[in-house]
């Protein structure tokens, strides 16, 4: 592995792959060690590997670095003590790990029957790690979401197989990341195209136009992929990209949703009200109340701002509320007798809630949505100050 060469096919026990495809990949490998033509680039491509399933260790902390050997072994030891994984794996059942660009799938295969153990989408995988513990070849897969991570523990018969799995997972990470980057470019072009036909603007009383579009932000914030050289393929760390199977990034959907909602408000709110709205929304989402009642006070202010005639629009705010305040907001809406779309407590247009960050979103960089809100807040504040003290102006004018 150290010299970056591919593994010898003969060592790939239990691997099923077409010989010709493997050789094509081998020849096209570039100097940085990455295959230019991935084995997984077609939707139907997948590889299978024989492994032993040890178990799943729950409640792994998000910040735990599983590329650290000591950490991994510590977690596995805890798993054994808490009986989440057995002390020894019998290996009686034929366990297959199936890898494609979309997910890893673990299943028992007995004769012609397959039993699914677990399926983990690629974008939910935080890292994959291989540890050789006194001749036991452990493959650990950390996956999950911001609140909770789990560790899938597998054993491999040979180090070659474990390293090959790591390397192939890295390829899949690369594909997901590539798709997301191209999607980012498409989304950016789509946004600027729409801006030419008129972005949401508001007119202040001086007749100047201000755009509600956010500040310059490429919209690809926290999710970064660290692609390791296959020469170190025993440690593959990834941060997933929020990329649904429909192919459009979650962040761009969210930004579009916010703009669409703001367009609604623009038609119904005055400039002052929009400025207040922006401030209150930021307060809700930055809130770290010492007293939970303070959050309720902000909700009340929002409700008063919307008033009886516009309170039906409050339901549309749901997608833009931070996860930790979401339940409280819903409770508040219920108390005010505000019904939600489709009678469910879900987001508009069946879109997942905003700010449900994946385990990969672990930096403090602003998301595209945060920057849109920040931009709105700033621009509305500017309008506010430009309008100035209207009564004073009226007095002066008269």
């Amino acid at each position, binding site marked *: 592995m150290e010299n970056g060469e591919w593994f010898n096919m003969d060592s790939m026990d239990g691997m099923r792959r077409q010989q010709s495809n493997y050789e094509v990949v081998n020849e096209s490998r*570039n100097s940085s060690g990455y295959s230019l033509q991935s084995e997984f680039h077609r939707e139907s491509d997948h590889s299978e590997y024989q492994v032993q399933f040890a178990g799943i260790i729950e409640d792994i902390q998000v910040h735990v670095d599983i590329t650290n050997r000591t950490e991994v072994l510590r977690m596995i030891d805890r798993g054994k003590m808490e009986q989440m994984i057995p002390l020894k794996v019998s290996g009686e059942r034929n366990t297959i790990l199936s890898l494609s660009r979309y997910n890893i799938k673990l299943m028992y295969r007995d004769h012609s029957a397959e039993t699914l153990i677990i399926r983990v989408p690629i974008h939910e995988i935080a890292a994959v790690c291989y540890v050789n513990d006194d001749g036991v070849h452990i493959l650990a897969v950390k996956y999950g979401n911001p609140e909770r991570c789990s560790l899938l523990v597998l054993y491999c018969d040979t180090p070659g197989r474990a390293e090959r799995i790591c390397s192939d997972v890295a390829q899949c990470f690369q594909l997901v990341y590539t798709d997301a980057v191209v999607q980012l470019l498409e989304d950016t072009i789509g946004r600027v195209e729409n801006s030419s036909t008129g972005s949401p603007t508001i007119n202040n009383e001086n007749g100047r136009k201000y755009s509600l579009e956010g500040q310059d932000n490429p919209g*690809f914030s926290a999710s970064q992929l660290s692609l390791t050289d296959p020469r170190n393929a025993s440690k593959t760390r990834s941060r997933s990209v929020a990329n649904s199977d429909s192919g459009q990034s979650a962040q761009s959907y969210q930004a579009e949703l916010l703009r669409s909602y703001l367009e609604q408000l623009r038609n119904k709110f005055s400039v002052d009200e929009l400025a207040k709205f922006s401030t209150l929304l930021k307060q809700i989402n930055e809130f770290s109340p010492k007293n939970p009642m303070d959050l309720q006070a902000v909700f009340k202010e929002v409700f008063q701002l919307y008033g009886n005639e516009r309170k039906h629009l409050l339901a549309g705010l749901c997608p833009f509320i931070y996860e930790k305040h979401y339940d409280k907001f819903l409770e508040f809406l219920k108390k005010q007798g505000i019904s939600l779309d489709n009678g469910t407590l879900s987001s508009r247009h069946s879109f997942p809630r905003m700010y449900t960050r994946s385990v990969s979103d672990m930096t403090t960089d602003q998301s595209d949505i945060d920057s849109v809100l920040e931009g709105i807040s700033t621009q509305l504040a500017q309008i506010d100050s430009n309008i100035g003290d209207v009564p004073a102006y009226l007095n002066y004018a008269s």
Partner: protein
Amino acid sequence: MTMGDSNKNLYAKMIVDVVLGPVLEKLEKKDVSAAQTLRAAFTKVDNTLPGFAYDYVKGILKKAEIHDKFDLCETLLQLGGSQDCEELRISRQEPTFQELNKCATALKKILSRIPEQIYDRKQFLETIKEIASAIKRLLDAVNRVIAEVPAADNGSKQILEDRKKEFVRYSKKFSNMLKEFFRDTNQNQSVFISANYLIYQTNLILRTVKQECC
């Protein structure tokens, strides 16, 4: 590979912008009259016989026996970001127009790096992210210029809007070529061609703004 007519015309126009233009600018310092006459002549001939500039330069390269030593498409792309001539610079000093100059130069520079980075996946993906950002900044700058055009001058506004739409069209083509490339890495030439088109479209925006606003 036989070059399509549209690609040949593109190369001819790029050659005028990034090869002949800078050379004639240097000549202007020695003999203004000769440089201006040559410039006018090339423009006139290329308008009458599209692709002439390409045939002309190809002829010179053949004479120098270096025509097969490099890929013209790649080279024009690399030159597209490094060569800038007065003809493509907006002279108005207001921040809006200077910002447009800056954004156009920045986008062309990033596009011109594609040939050296396309084979390094990680670096290339970072470049694509930069391209996305640069395209947005350029079109935001164009929007600001359009906003500065007097309300009475609807004709100029419309011309600039049309130019912008054309640019967006070629941006989409570029993005599609990237998708094709990531499915089949032999499609690198298509990426170079579409990037060249994008540089050319950027130059067209600059020319149009000069024509309508300066």
